[in-house]
């Protein structure tokens, strides 16, 4: 079993939230507690979304993250902006999880948010979220990698890459974005499976297959 890495404070919260289940406890302790518990992390209740860990970011960090997510993916006529569907809050959930990958992401995201405000403070005397939109995009342009990254902006580039990757993941896993992306499944269809539309078969020259 994955060694648990939750903090002592988280443990108390977990105990309160999932005392019957022993969720997220060190495996030996969890095994002793778990006999027939349901609704824990090994046997979740799909009707009740339970996040048994703290979300680490404070309001100011979340506000900056919200602005950043909307700059990375603005939304369009078919798809809401990330701020409308809680992507920043999801990222807070993601980086709060006690698993190794999430902890690694927490380091980059939380550190990067701090770095960003220090960086914009030295440039403009303001935090990132207080900048004009054109100033914000100028900052992103400087760290996104479209141009060579000077050593002083290396941390910002690492942050941008991770944040973009997580924003893409968090955004396009929300069902309200699927039409825009082009995922049209998860809908029942009667009769035989319809297969590939003719226009695609023609486009790829697959008539003989």
């Amino acid at each position, binding site marked *: 079993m994955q060694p648990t890495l939750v903090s002592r404070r988280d443990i108390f919260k977990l105990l309160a939230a999932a005392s019957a289940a022993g969720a997220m406890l060190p495996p030996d302790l969890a095994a002793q507690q778990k006999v027939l518990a349901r609704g824990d992390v090994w046997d979740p209740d799909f009707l009740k979304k339970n996040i048994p860990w703290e979300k680490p970011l404070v309001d100011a960090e979340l506000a900056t993250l919200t602005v950043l997510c909307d700059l990375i993916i603005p939304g369009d006529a078919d798809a809401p902006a990330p701020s409308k569907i809680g992507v920043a809050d999801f990222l807070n959930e993601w980086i709060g999880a006690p698993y190794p990958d999430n902890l690694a992401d927490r380091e980059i995201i939380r550190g990067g948010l701090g770095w960003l405000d220090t960086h914009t403070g030295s440039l403009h005397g303001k935090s990132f979220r207080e900048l004009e939109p054109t100033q914000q995009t100028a900052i992103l342009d400087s760290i996104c990698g479209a141009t060579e990254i000077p050593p002083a902006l290396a941390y910002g580039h690492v942050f941008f890459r991770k944040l973009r990757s997580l924003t893409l993941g968090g955004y396009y896993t929300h069902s309200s974005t699927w039409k825009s992306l082009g995922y049209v499944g998860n809908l029942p269809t009667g009769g035989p*499976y319809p297969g590939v539309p003719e226009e695609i078969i023609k486009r790829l020259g697959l008539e003989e297959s």
Partner: protein
Amino acid sequence: MAILTDRKTLPEYDAIIVGSGAGGGMMAMQLALGGMKVLMIEAGRNYEPTTETPMFNTPEQAPLRGQSTPEKPFGYYDATVDGGWQVPGEPYSDKAGTQHPFKWWRSRMLGGRTNHWGRISLRFGPHDFKPKTRDGLGYDWPISYEDLAPYYDKTQLITGIFGTNVGMENIPDTPAGILLPPPKPRVGEMLAKKHAAKLGVPIHPIHRAVLTERLDGPARAARLFPNNALAQKILAKDMSSRAACFWATECGRGCSIRANFQSTTVLIPPALASGNLHIITDAMVREVMLDASGKATGIRYIDKPTRSDAEVKAKVIVLSASTCETARILLNSKSTLFPNGLANSSGQVGKNLMDSLGSDLGAHIPALESMPPYNEDGSGGSHVYAPWWNHGKHDKLNFPRGYHIELGATRNMPVMHSLNILDSKSPSTYGKKLMDEARRYYGASISFAGRGEMIPNEHCYTELDPNRLDQWGIPVLRFHWKWSDHELNQVKHMQETFAGIINEMGGSATPRPAAEAINKPGEIIHEAGAARMGASTKDSVTNSFGQTWDVKNLFLMDGSILPSNPNKNLTITIMALAWRSSEYLMQEMKSGNI
């Protein structure tokens, strides 16, 4: 329903079956429909796919968007309950000197691992039963394809398998009126077929246990049980009540409309309807009990809610606990008559452990970019595959046996990493342009996964760990593993083939080195062979019916009895063997031989 939550079991059953998956489920259904009083013992909890399956749940309804975690390694919505690579409080270990740690997937739920499997249902062929005769390696089966063919027919009739006959060597055809029509291929699968053909790799409809149309219950039931009115009545109704696939949702979540095969959607409902099956869940088997003459008398299990031991008795015991768990029960059932474990006079229990070889390679395919959307969920898995196409060409290959290729070419429901491709294809974009790039690249990729046959060897086995107990006080298993060149050379061939097809398709791929591209032992979850059947009491544990040589009223009925592990995923073969064994078992009981 006869789930005995009160534990009020009968004083004695005709048969006790340990485990509720493919082998146990089939055995229970056959014996119960045959009029025997049967008790099924399941280590995990009761599970009802019709009410518990999260069919249309979306990622935002799950923690971490449904991402896999150590507690739910195949994702939050995977059907597996209380399991995965680890079960809380039930560890396993690796023996010093092993080349690779073994990964052992378990679940603790009614229906076992049939609730989440890939539903790929390929018959073993004539060569597969006589591998040693053909290449001198491993073991022949004590039966031939012809012995099992009628039971493949029956198993296919009851489970419902789609596919076609392809008329290839060692890929047996199915008689008329059994296979359901296959679903049409997806665009990536069609493209792969076109280009793989140039390399001589044939791509055909796969066979999977998913209903592409409703079953004609009365007709199938009459064909299956012409002389059993009770079975006909129950199965006619039950088979007809299963719905056809509606081309949405992942099979691995389970299926609430019972369109795909799970022991809990196909086998256990009719078994319960017979009135002859009792089930106790949350009951962890400790050992098989014996009388002074060496005959099995019952099962001692741990009643998990009370953490106390209990006993149940039967005339026949069937172990269908899964390959490694069955070996574990045998090794833990020690007595003065069987000091090395029950039915282990050959010393073969725990030996000859095999998994399927696995290796995969994926790549971006430019021709699939910016594809107009259409439903690619389909039947939930591959619609096509490449059966092994190199029989008779082994003089030109540097490995024995072979593999089949499964395709991953579908715009699945997005998961967290679905757009990772943009990290390399469009690393610095953001804003509206990023949304355009997401549309362009989403699903524009393909992956190939090989499933190959390994040769059993003396370095791959499981045994009791002398120092560790699980939380129930039962000694745990430890594993030892070592690949041979047979396996590594085959994986090298897989990688070269996959890269070749990808490059033909216009992608760009380089074969990965075999030693790193081979899946970890156990990772394909096709364990087999730990208590193999054979022709001789000297070097095998059971006869071809799974009846142990040492104890006549003890049967093994899961992957443990397979003498070889052909590349054709073993579930349907376990069920066909169970069907065959159940007839023998009932006949032997009637004749008073057991």
